[in-house]
């Protein structure tokens, strides 16, 4: 149910992003979803890939600072108000969203949203109790 997300520290220097995607590409690692959070000095690149263990190893070898965080993916109907229903459930259960990012599936009418919570187990419980389906991790890593 939980998905491993890889986070990478990057200074705001030109070409840094390309170096990371280059390392992953050379090692046959496919990026499934990504989000880049940035400040004036540095950024954090968050990635979901098809082989997170391998990605972690090759990035460490190239001396990037990386970490692994558990996140979850939820399918949301690609229609107005689809996200609000989920956020309300979380709010009612006092679960905080640290950050989230979305992408649209290749086929189908749904969007997938990746969530990072302060308390992931609490979030999973609240969502499941309210009939929200959390995507199995294979569904996401093999999108």
């Amino acid at each position, binding site marked *: 149910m939980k998905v491993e997300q890889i*986070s990478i*520290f990057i200074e705001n220097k030109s070409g840094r992003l390309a170096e990371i995607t280059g390392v992953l590409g050379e090692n046959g690692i496919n990026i499934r979803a990504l989000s880049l*959070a940035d*400040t004036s*000095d*540095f950024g954090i690149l968050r990635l979901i890939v098809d082989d997170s263990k391998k990605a972690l190893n090759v990035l460490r070898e190239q*001396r990037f*600072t*990386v*970490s692994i965080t558990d996140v979850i993916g939820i399918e949301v109907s690609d229609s107005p108000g689809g996200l609000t229903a989920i956020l309300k459930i979380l709010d009612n259960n006092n679960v905080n969203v640290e950050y989230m990012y979305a992408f649209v599936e290749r086929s189908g009418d749904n969007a997938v949203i990746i969530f990072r919570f302060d308390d992931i187990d609490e979030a999973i419980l609240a969502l499941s109790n309210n009939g929200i389906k959390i995507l199995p991790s294979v569904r996401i890593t093999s999108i």
Partner: protein
Amino acid sequence: MIWNDDFETLPREALEPLQLKRLQQTVEKVYAAVPFYRDSFDKHGIKPADIKSLNDLQRLPFTLKQDMRDSYPYGLFAVPLEQIVRIHASSGTTGKPTVVGYTRRDINNWTELMARSFVAAGTTRGDIIHNAYGYGLFTGGLGAHYGAERVGASVIPMSGGNTKKQLMIMQDFGSTVLTCTPSYSLYLAEVAAEEGIDIRKLKLKVGIFGAEPWSENMRQEIESKLNIKAIDIYGLSEILGPGVGIECIEAQNGLHIWEDHFIPEIINPETGEVLPDGEKGELVITTVTKEGIPLIRYRTRDITRLFREPCICGRTHARIERLSGRSDDMLIIRGVNVFPSQIESVLFNIDGVEPHYQLLVERDGNLDTLEVQVEVNEQTFSDEIKILQGLSNKIRKDIKDLLGVTCKIRLVEPKTITRSEGKAKRVIDNRQKES
């Protein structure tokens, strides 16, 4: 253990008359042989015969680093070049280096003082000394080398650089004592970890570190990362090179200055007034046995305290506190005095932060700006922006609280701050270029 019991534990009632006798001889010698000193004494209306007690030392004028530069290369030598057997020079990052010459007796004394220092640090003839101070114009390599041989230890003349090879030799030869700069010892530990070598399991037991100021926190870091005792050694090429003073392994509390060869004083760097024992100020040293280039009241620019209480090791020689910084490393940021070592101590007190940092000083209009670059590592990294920003806010606040200066913190990727194999380059000051 003590190398030279007679001199190192000489009661102060006997040590001080010896200092006075040697001071009088030195003053007479420089007045007769060095035009710079004759002019300067004449200008101050003082004659060698006026030095009747150790207190009269205060009447003599100071010698400055600039005086050595002005006398480049041989102007301050007190003997003809035929009697000089070795010449060293300081790194001289700005302009010409300062040049020092040694007679055969100077080399012999230096060797003696380095032998005393090695033994004070717990070294015996059974040790294998891995000497990673640079050999060359810099005094560190050869100074330590001669002293190590005098003790009878086996010395490996590694010099600086080629870190992987250093580690191989350290493993294969079974080095037990490491001599280098404190920052290089941490770099060795870092490279060892990358190479999969457990440096804590090597035979090293003691490191003798000098040539740059380092904090007590850095000592703890070195001691735990390398699993050794880290001993602070003091020296400067103008006075001798390494071995002007050293911590004893028994107390590790202050560095004994070899007072039968040097007279230390602490002065107020603004007024030049001599301060009582225990007060913080600039260290001033007078050499009383040197022949090649004796120096009278040389202003070291090093900031410390002096104390003369007896030490548990039995040595009677005065101790200086570990240096808080060199006055020329001191940055003045918007009127506030900042030593890089103070920023280092702030970083050490924050969990997980590595001691690799660099200070970038610039002038924006009329305003000085200080940027502290700190490396992020896997311990401090987080996937959440707010945690990283919390880290930089904490560093900024701690620096502000300690130093009263506002700075900008820049988190940088690991290993992007250049590792030094000699003296660490902590400060990039871009202000001078503009003026």
